[in-house]
């Protein structure tokens, strides 16, 4: 609220200056507009395409659909080969988010509360897992999962994504946990709480925002990851991103449907980001602000 008021006040000041001395204010407004247009243009163009049919997309250049149609969306929502892509993606992303946070919570607690041999090295080593490109791990995962019969299952992708999501969740949660004084743990023990009860009843509510942020980051990275999810699936667990990259039919690319799929793929991420918008900065700083 306060920020909005400041922005309005600045706007008013700028407007007054513009009335008096003109050009300076216009420059900043123009730059801002150009920047936003630049950022939003691809998304708009995707949306624009999703409402056209293929002939209009290919034959003419139009800034908005001449004959708007929802056929493309209808195709996606009725054709199993399309909407199952979303279902598959959601399944392994949610699985991965749950596993990552569940596994990272006790690990982060250990790192934030106990000193043990090699704790600092181990903690740093966790993060180095994020430094290798996923392509490095695609081959071993593919071979391993094929060997144990996990190929083309949701859990395979969920587990593979844990490789980079668990370390990230551990780092984020450790940052949040470090902000909770150790005396709270001890007071709880003195009050008679057993460790599990303390952890669930007292400690987790204290770091609720951290858990939210960790879950969001796990969700986001798992949602956008393409290489591993495509390598480890073929039919039953095929993610939407893979479906999109493979959509070349006999008659060439189905541009409109592809665009509609793109728009629908943006939606879950945008929804999730809305819920954690106030904590994202802290999350990017791994909880250390």
């Amino acid at each position: 609220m306060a920020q909005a008021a400041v922005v309005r006040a600045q706007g008013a000041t700028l407007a007054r200056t513009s009335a008096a001395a003109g050009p300076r204010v216009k420059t900043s407004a123009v730059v801002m507009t150009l920047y936003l247009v630049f950022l939003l243009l691809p998304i708009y163009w995707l949306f624009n395409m999703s409402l056209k049919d293929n002939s209009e997309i290919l034959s003419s250049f139009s800034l908005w659909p001449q004959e708007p149609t929802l056929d493309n969306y209808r195709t996606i929502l009725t054709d199993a080969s399309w909407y199952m892509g979303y279902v598959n993606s959601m399944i392994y992303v949610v699985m991965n988010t749950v596993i990552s946070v569940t596994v990272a919570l006790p690990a982060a607690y250990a790192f934030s509360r106990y000193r043990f041999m090699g704790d600092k090295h181990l903690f740093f080593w966790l993060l180095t897992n994020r430094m290798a490109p996923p392509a490095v791990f695609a081959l071993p995962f593919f071979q391993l999962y094929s060997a144990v019969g996990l190929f083309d299952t949701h859990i395979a992708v969920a587990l593979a994504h844990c490789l980079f999501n668990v370390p990230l969740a551990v780092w984020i949660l450790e940052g949040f946990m470090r902000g909770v004084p150790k005396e709270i743990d001890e007071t709880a023990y003195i009050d008679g709480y057993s460790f599990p009860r303390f952890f669930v009843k007292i400690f987790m509510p204290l770091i609720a925002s951290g858990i939210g942020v960790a879950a969001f980051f796990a969700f986001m990275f798992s949602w956008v990851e393409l290489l591993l999810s495509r390598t480890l699936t073929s039919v039953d667990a095929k993610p939407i991103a893979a479906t999109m990259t493979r959509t070349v039919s006999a008659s060439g690319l189905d541009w409109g449907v592809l665009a509609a799929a793109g728009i629908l793929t943006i939606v879950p991420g945008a929804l999730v980001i809305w819920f954690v918008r106030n904590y994202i900065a802290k999350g990017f700083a791994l909880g250390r602000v």
Partner: protein
Amino acid sequence: MTLVLDNVSKVVDGRTHIYPTSLTLEKGTMNVLLGPTLAGKTSLMRLMAGLDKPATGRIVWNGEDVTDRRVQDRNVAMVYQQFVNYPTLSVWENIASPLKVARRPRAEIDAAVKKTAALMKLDGLLDRKPLELSGGQQQRCALARALVKDAGLVLLDEPLANLDYKLREELRAEIPRIFEESGAIFVYATTEPEEALLLGGNTATLWEGRVTQFGRTPDVYRRPADAVTARVFSDPPMNFLKIAKAGDRLLFGEGQSVPALGALGALKDGRYLAGFRPNHLELEPPHPGCLAFPAVLSETEITGSETYVHIDHGGERWVGLVHGVRALEHGRALTVHVDPAHVYVFEEDGALAAPASYALAA
């Protein structure tokens, strides 16, 4: 109900935090741990609570060895210097938490919480979250949680140190009253000698991980067992002077001497360490027969009704606490006076040789 520490020690990473210590705390006593920062007050308390395991020794509660017992299963409560409450729970839930964990009936919990909250003057605040309270109220909430449990051992680790002056005095006056009602063993850590004297009961003085003396608070104050105890139990610290007794004179510094008056005349010849408290240093001789020392004034601190005078005597820095506002010129030479009845004499190794005669009379 007794708590016995039997040769308990604590070693962290090869450094000794608590040297082997034996203490016996009786039921219904107020026990003050007095010592400067890092003396080991908190370490000792954590051992009593069971938060840390002692490196050696046993902890016996009511004749039962509880050294290896989990803190959850010990009958203790603790309040920290920082205001530690559960931020996500309301004040009511905070106070109720030990009882809830113990699975007491709901009605009993509610009655106990209301009673304790009234005692700690938190009546109207039960629905608030701890962070919506003032510092004093937060600490009251922590105290209430410690009291509601009805623990046999209540540990208070400098509970008033983070409060402002007024609140501190208020709560300090309340603590002995609360303590009277509970009948538990209270242990209260503080850095301030004044606080120990106000709380009464017993005092254990700590210095660098050792309990130097344990006894009734006024006794420890009046008859410190050694120079270290006397230094700890005096604020500002006790002033010291190396002296030698030869015949009927006390020799000090470089060939200076004063007549050995009062009880000091009865000492055997030899080397000693003399000590007296800052409030016994006088700028004017209160009566003839006082020891007089030449000194140089280095600094004065005026606190309104009293003046701290920092003076250099030989190589020693002394502090005196005198009544009234004294506007004294820095660097001025002056003579300070000490009544021999106020002088403690310690052996060279620090053990008490002769207590000040005023303290014996009291």
